[in-house]
């Protein structure tokens, strides 16, 4: 027993209650998705998989899923590519305005989504860009960039600069050095960033809601379905699937990030 626990006896109870409060609602989601009844209330009616089975037959859902995959994929590539170069610059070079630009890049983490969303909508419309997948991608790249930058920064932080010098010294060109040394070494970091930013985009609602026009992403679609009580069990099933895959992706991302940290001796 740690000394902290001895001094504050209720600490364990508090922590347990806190975690239950935090995660119990999330666990109810999959629980009711297997419940054979349309009303979300105890007692449970019986086990069924029909809500999951019905998901595949809903064309608008499939369309929304496709939209989310496109937006998430493109956002992941954009933000990771930008994050890669930004992180390298932040870690490697000392230039004027480095701290300011780093702060600006990380800012989306703390600006309320609703502010970003409404101001982006105004901006896009004023420059003639109609709400569409493109505008969602732009918005999502903006919010996913801080995640990409911080993951890539931790990759480059441990990157020994003399590795690149050694490659150059051994006769390799600047581009060849990047391809044969820099890229393979930060590769796990890149994968982690791709998965992370994809997940950020895939789960994002507020921006997508404002910027989607008539091409909803999955979270926007789910929101629109919640209004119909009969569709609720379907939505629970869909939500459970999203939850499962999000956690899976983040776990894979984290394992890659750790591998990135470990591979640099």
């Amino acid at each position, binding site marked *: 027993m740690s000394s902290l626990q001895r001094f504050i006896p209720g600490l364990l109870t508090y922590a347990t209650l806190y975690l239950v409060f935090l995660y119990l609602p999330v666990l109810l989601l999959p629980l009711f998705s297997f419940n054979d009844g349309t009303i979300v209330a105890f007692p449970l009616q019986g086990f069924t998989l029909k809500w999951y089975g019905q998901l595949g037959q809903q064309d608008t859902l499939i369309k929304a899923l496709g939209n989310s995959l496109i937006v998430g994929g493109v956002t992941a590539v954009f933000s990771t590519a930008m994050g890669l170069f930004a992180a390298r610059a932040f870690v490697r070079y000392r230039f004027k305005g480095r701290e300011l630009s780093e702060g600006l890049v990380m800012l989306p983490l703390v600006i309320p989504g609703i502010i970003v969303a409404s101001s982006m909508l105004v901006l896009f419309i004023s420059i003639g860009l109609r709400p569409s997948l493109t505008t969602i991608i732009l918005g999502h790249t903006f919010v996913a960039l801080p995640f990409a930058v911080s993951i890539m920064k931790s990759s480059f932080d441990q990157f*020994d600069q*003399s590795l690149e*010098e*050694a*490659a*150059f010294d*051994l*006769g*390799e060109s600047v581009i060849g050095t990047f391809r044969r040394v820099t890229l393979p070494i930060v590769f796990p970091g890149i994968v982690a960033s791709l998965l992370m930013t994809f997940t950020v985009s895939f789960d994002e609602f507020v921006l997508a809601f404002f910027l989607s026009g008539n091409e909803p992403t999955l979270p926007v679609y789910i929101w629109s379905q919640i209004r119909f009580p009969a569709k609720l069990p379907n939505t629970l099933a869909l939500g459970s699937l999203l939850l499962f895959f999000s956690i899976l992706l983040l776990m894979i991302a984290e394992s890659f990030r750790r591998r990135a940290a470990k591979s640099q001796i």
Partner: protein
Amino acid sequence: MMENRSDKKIIEITGVTKRFGSFVAVCDLNLDLYQGEFFSLLGPSGCGKTTALRIIAGFQDPDKGEIVIDGKSMRDVSANKRPTNMVFQSYAIFPHLNVGNNVAFGLRKSGISRSEIDDRVSEALEMVELDGLEKRSAEELSGGQRQRVALARALVLRPKVLLLDEPLSALDKKLRETMQLELRRLQRSIGITFVMVTHDQYEAMTMSDRIGVMFDGKLEQIDRPEDLYARPCSKDVASFIGGMNFLPASLKEESGNVLDISTPGFGDMRIEINSNVSKHGPKLLTGIRPEQLEISAKKPSDYDAMAQGKVVDVAFYGESIHYFVGLDGIDEPITVAVPNYFHTMDYQRGDTVWLGVQNASVIDLGEIPDNMKD
């Protein structure tokens, strides 16, 4: 000559200066290096030795001056096109490649056939005694093995000059001493010029044919290790290499290549002029190596100069014992190093002892530096 260098100049450095902002890292560096020699740049950290090495390698451009390697000017020749290769302080072993691919890294570009690459890699690994470890992953290597891989990776390209940046500093003491001799042997057997940067005087002395001592961006003295030890050109060099007792003296007469001087403590002495010293004056600085002083309880008879003093401290080093002896008229106690012959410590703190020294052991260090004048 003992060393295996030839008279052919392989690197000519003229007037090289490098500034970082207002800080002058390297100031007017002039240095010729010869084919096949083992040269060390020695100096305290921040003296510009690593910058000098990186300028030779091509990682940094000098603000002024020129570098010629093997007769060709290196102006506008970038590091990847120079006939030099470097062993980095961190060794910079590529973590995603195995030993064989690390060593083959530089060969893959040059359009050499696969089988020849394999041959050269195994030959290089044999040279550093890592034969057959091609498939070993970089993460499984010990510190010493990493250094050998770094050496093999650089030497497999058959550079004209191998540059080594503090190559032994990451190793523990025992391994470091083994590698000093091994690197020396390797350099002799392949005959490539080695230029090593180090802050460790013993490393520099045991390994090098010649040593260049740097302070504050300036090359103070270039000499063979034994000459550097016997005839340092200044107080800085003298105190950086080995231990040294400094003794101010006044010049009585200068005739031919001898100086008649008078010192506090040891009295009058006749010493040889040190040809490496640039300036003499009425006030001189002299130096005596701690191991060249005799210490005894009775007044010794067969020494050119003697002094009586009191032991103020004793330090036991294992292979030797250092006695610190206070003399009248000298602020700093004189250090005397005595080999540990019989596991005895003959003198204790407070003992009155005699010191003896021969004229030949007293080194002329020229006019006394300003900061030591009264």
